[in-house]
């Protein structure tokens, strides 16, 4: 195994783990599509990084946190319908991103290429993925109860609005670090599909979170190995592999 492949597998697995754990909470509240839409916001950020020669990861992160704050504010500070606004804003972000992104880099931004990950990006993404996984597990009870019932969460003195903000911020960070693996368009899949499979199979929350993380890591490893063997892009390989597993899991639904 080459050193590059080893690094790619390591970062892919760690990002996959963070995405899998995150997805298990996101699916508790059917937040899957908000997350998918949110990932599109990263594109103009990547584009700005490419155009003005700074690390695109920083541009993506800044815009994602901005997008997250807007979702949260619309949800809690206004009476506007969240779905519609989120839908319109994020398709606009995608359009703006496509206009701004240099043609040569567009395909990579949309569909990812983890093989191109730099040494600095490797360390940043890996350590962020580990930290995110730890925070998600640490706050797992708060996230779970808030996602299930805001009222019950408040009744035991949790602060649902703050917990949601923390969750959305983590969501944005996972999208930012996952973009190299799957690209902007397929990032939602990294978060949604492993959790959806786990939900079909698990009987308990502990098993659900564990399975979601394991499946995500497995998907990343298979995607990266197949892409290195056959020269396919890893993002779409990952998504198709897990998509197939999802349909298989329907037959084993508990």
């Amino acid at each position, binding site marked *: 195994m080459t050193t590059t492949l080893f690094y790619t597998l390591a970062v892919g697995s760690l990002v996959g783990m963070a995405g899998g754990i995150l997805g298990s909470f996101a699916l*508790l509240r059917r937040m899957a599509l908000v997350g998918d839409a949110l990932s599109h916001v990263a594109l103009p950020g990547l584009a700005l990084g490419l155009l003005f020669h700074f690390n695109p990861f920083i541009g993506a992160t800044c815009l994602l946190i901005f997008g997250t704050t807007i979702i949260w504010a619309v949800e809690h500070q206004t009476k506007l319908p969240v779905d519609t606004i989120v839908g319109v804003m994020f398709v606009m972000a995608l359009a703006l991103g496509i206009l701004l992104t240099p043609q040569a880099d567009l395909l990579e931004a949309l569909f990812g290429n983890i093989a191109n990950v730099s040494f600095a990006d490797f360390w940043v993404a890996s350590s962020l993925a580990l930290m995110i996984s730890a925070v998600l597990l640490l706050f797992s*009870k708060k996230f*779970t*109860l808030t996602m*299930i*019932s805001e*009222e*019950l969460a*408040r*009744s*035991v*003195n*949790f602060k649902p609005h703050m917990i949601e903000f923390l969750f959305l911020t983590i969501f944005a960070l996972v999208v930012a670090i996952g973009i190299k693996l799957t690209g902007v368009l397929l990032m939602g899949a990294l978060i949604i599909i492993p959790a959806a499979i*786990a*939900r*079909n199979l*698990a*009987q*308990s*929350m*502990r*098993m*659900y979170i564990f399975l979601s993380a394991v499946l995500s890591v497995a998907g990343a490893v298979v995607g990266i190995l197949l892409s290195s063997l056959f020269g396919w892009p890893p993002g779409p390989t990952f998504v198709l592999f897990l998509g197939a597993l999802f349909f298989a899991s329907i037959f084993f*639904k*508990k």
Partner: protein
Amino acid sequence: MAFLELKNVSVKIKNEEVLQNVSFTAEKGETIAIIGPNGAGKTTLLKSLLGFLPYQGAIKFEGKPVVGYVPQRIDIDRDLPLTVQEFLDLVPTFFKKPRNTPKQVLGFVNLSETFLLRSISTLSTGEFQRILIAFALMNQPDVLLFDEPTASIDIAGQETIYELLHRLQDVQHFALILISHDLTMVYRYADKVLCLNRTQICFGVPREVLTPEELQKIYGETLFYHHAHEINPESSV
């Protein structure tokens, strides 16, 4: 000072006054029933007590009590992978009091230990209501707020939700404030009744304040009047 005291509590939602000038007191261990027609502000009052809604006026508890809350229902997806044990363990520990264990609270609500491993999505409505009560009992509450126990869904052969709450109160000594549509149960178990129809119509011992005239004022329809009139307080005790 009373355990709980409300003075001129009013609540506005979107500039509409949904609750006006509610004032009452509750003592430790008492049962207060809140009655009134749909849209009378019963749930609004309960949510104000919980601190979920902004209000005008004053709500004062003696000290800082642990408040348990049982919502009317929560919408849970049928395929939610969460066991009863995991659900009950979501309750954090308050530093003031030792937390009950999930096994203990299941015992309180008359469910066997085998329920710990059941997925909450497989429970019947009656079983789930008991689990919600168990959830509220985890931190040994000083007051339990209950948004409308549903009597019709009891598990056959077991005590009703009202009997269960009454028994628990004898042991745990919490004050109970509940919304109810069941006047027979109000007569039987409530120490005091608060009648609401956006404003406070009456407050006091059920036998004294729930006169046919007051009931007509609360519900405003002859249908309810006849229904209430049929309930003879003597026969239901």
